[in-house]
């Protein structure tokens, strides 16, 4: 009997030893003379179980995890290749409550298919969206995106259909599709996971975007910190070219970042592709009018583009039919930091923060009480538990002084020093500032100095007033979200955790 063994090639699994596990399983299979194919799939998103190894049986796929290379001998001896019971066994992965409760529209194939195989992608329903898009006329394509209610998943939440319509209507000799895969926010990894687990989905989404706006060339800008995603996308693009999916009327070129966080800002990213310092451009002109190499450009986040194939395949009404208020569709939430069940949880908008952190995430990994969560990366606000009834919804978060950003939730236990986190927000802004605008370039440095004085007890009232004023200046005077949103983590920490900013505070908290 031919068997297929799945050992994720996702970076989280690899970082936890998946390559060694795959090699050990290969050795055992060869030694036993078994007909075994090892597929390096993506991750299903249950990261506490990684490496989550699966084997095909008559009853479907059976999972085991987390499997350390030291577990492999025992696993094989117990009958792994026949799907036999073992203490690491979890049964059918899809029946795990963490997965079964999700509504996976975007991540439906991630962790299931072979990311290197276009045939596997098509066998699991891939390609239908592109075919449907080809059958529509130009107006109907844009109307489909608009009807889905999809809003940019990179953080700003701008309606994707309106952006594409603007580019489609622009008159120019060339237009570009640019995919922003510079996922630099701490606590986020959805872009990385989908590129490593279902790369053809992004290719299909970019190709549909090209059809919608009338572009024949797409750039995929991936951060250098993601070598596995770069490799997975390069392999998939090669396979797509070989199969004629790419190359004729649309092609994709990968560009690799170079460690600059601000290049995740769309205009800095365009500068970087053009071969310059990643300095933010003043807007207007919008990239939709004058973007890459001065041409109309649809620049979208990975998560926006990978939502597109489903919208065309199943119709925009299905996507628009789930969600909350003006936030339609699903959001791939990323549970990170000090959390027991970390990973990727795709769910319609409207679920509360508390349900995600406590019920789905299982609270902290350390077992200590949750004290704060940061949502939306390093520029997102810190939330205390008393705001955990806030639903995941762009407007609801804005109403309580926060932002969803790219959907990353980083959990901290009660050992966290929030003054230190506020200081880090300024410090990070100073390190990553592109230097173009004064509020960000100077404000971040002054912010670090002022928080140091505050913590030291040097005229605390005066420092507090200064930080508040500085935050206002940065928020309203910065060119982009780096300087403009750094006040979110700083001011939310000050508002919700003022006790940590007293000079004697560091001794009060644990750790």
């Amino acid at each position, binding site marked *: 009997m031919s068997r297929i063994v799945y050992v994720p090639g996702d970076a989280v699994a690899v970082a936890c030893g998946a390559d060694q596990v795959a090699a050990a399983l290969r050795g055992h299979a060869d030694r036993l003379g078994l007909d075994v194919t090892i597929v390096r799939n993506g991750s299903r998103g249950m990261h506490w179980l990684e490496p989550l190894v699966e084997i095909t049986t008559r009853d479907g796929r059976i999972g085991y995890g987390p499997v350390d290379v030291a577990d492999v001998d025992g696993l094989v001896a117990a009958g792994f290749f026949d799907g036999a019971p073992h203490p690491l066994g979890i049964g059918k992965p899809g029946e795990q409550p963490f997965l079964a409760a999700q509504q996976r529209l975007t991540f439906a194939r991630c962790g299931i298919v072979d990311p290197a195989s276009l045939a596997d992608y098509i066998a699991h329903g891939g390609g239908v969206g592109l075919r449907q898009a080809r059958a529509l006329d130009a107006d109907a394509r844009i109307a489909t995106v608009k009807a889905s209610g999809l809003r940019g998943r990179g953080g700003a939440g701008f309606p994707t259909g309106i952006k594409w319509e603007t580019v489609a209507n622009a008159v120019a000799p060339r237009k570009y599709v640019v995919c922003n895969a510079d996922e630099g926010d701490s606590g986020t990894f959805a872009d990385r996971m989908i590129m490593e687990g279902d790369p053809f989905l992004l290719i299909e989404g970019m190709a549909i975007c090209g059809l919608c706006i009338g572009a024949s060339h797409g750039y995929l800008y991936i951060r250098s910190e993601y070598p596995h995603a770069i490799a997975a996308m390069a392999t998939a693009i090669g396979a797509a070219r070989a199969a004629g999916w790419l190359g004729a009327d649309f092609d994709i070129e990968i560009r690799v970042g170079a460690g600059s966080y601000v290049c995740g800002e769309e205009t800095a990213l365009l500068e970087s592709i053009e071969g310059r310092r990643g300095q933010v451009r003043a807007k207007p002109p919008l990239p939709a009018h004058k973007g890459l190499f001065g041409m109309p450009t649809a620049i979208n986040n990975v998560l926006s583009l990978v939502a597109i194939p489903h919208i065309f395949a199943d119709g925009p009404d299905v996507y628009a039919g789930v969600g909350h208020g003006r936030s339609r569709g699903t959001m791939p939430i990323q*549970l990170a930091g000090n959390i027991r069940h970390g990973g990727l949880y795709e769910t319609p908008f409207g679920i509360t923060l508390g349900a995600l952190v406590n019920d789905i995430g299982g609270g902290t990994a350390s077992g200590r009480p949750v004290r704060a969560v940061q949502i939306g990366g390093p520029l997102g606000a810190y939330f205390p538990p008393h705001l955990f009834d806030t639903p995941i919804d762009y407007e609801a978060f804005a109403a309580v002084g926060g932002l969803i950003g790219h959907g990353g939730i980083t959990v901290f236990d009660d050992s966290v020093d929030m003054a230190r986190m506020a200081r880090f927000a300024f410090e990070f802004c100073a390190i990553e500032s592109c230097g173009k605008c004064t509020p960000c370039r100077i404000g971040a440095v002054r912010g670090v100095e002022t928080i140091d004085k505050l913590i030291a007890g040097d005229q605390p009232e005066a420092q507090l007033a200064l930080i508040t004023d500085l935050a206002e200046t940065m928020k309203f005077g910065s060119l982009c979200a780096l300087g403009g949103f750094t006040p979110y983590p700083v001011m939310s920490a000050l508002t919700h955790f003022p006790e940590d900013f007293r000079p004697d505070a560091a001794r009060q908290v644990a750790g």
Partner: protein
Amino acid sequence: MTTGNPSLSLAEVIAPFAGMAGALLPVLHAVQQAFGHIDDAAVVVIAEKLNLSRADVHGVLTFYHDFRRRPAGRTVLKICRAEACQAMGSDALIAHAEARLATPMHSQRADGAISLEPVYCLGLCSAAPSAMLDGQVFARLSPDRLDALLAGAMS
């Protein structure tokens, strides 16, 4: 640090990028991959080949954290300092690494054996703290596990 084929000349490394729009970042990556770093002499050649000023090349080279103007240590350890890793003790891990390696963050040990650098997010935030050692990623790190990895890499 692994590098590409050292027998290639600078011109040979740059040649495949002729005619590419916005080629400077791909060229800098390729040069660093081939030679380990991008020195002042290379800047002159890159500027000439891409028809840019040396100031343009210098500006880009010094803007991006990835690019090196002098060789790195034989082993490069990058430990993540971003929030999710901080929530799982990356500060203590960094302090441990600095003490164990007798090398402060952002620096290279005098014997050239290792460079210790920060990185801001490897996207492994659900399995923190994480690090990159000579291009390989590692998660769920403890001081003991880091010691074992370093012993393997530096032996």
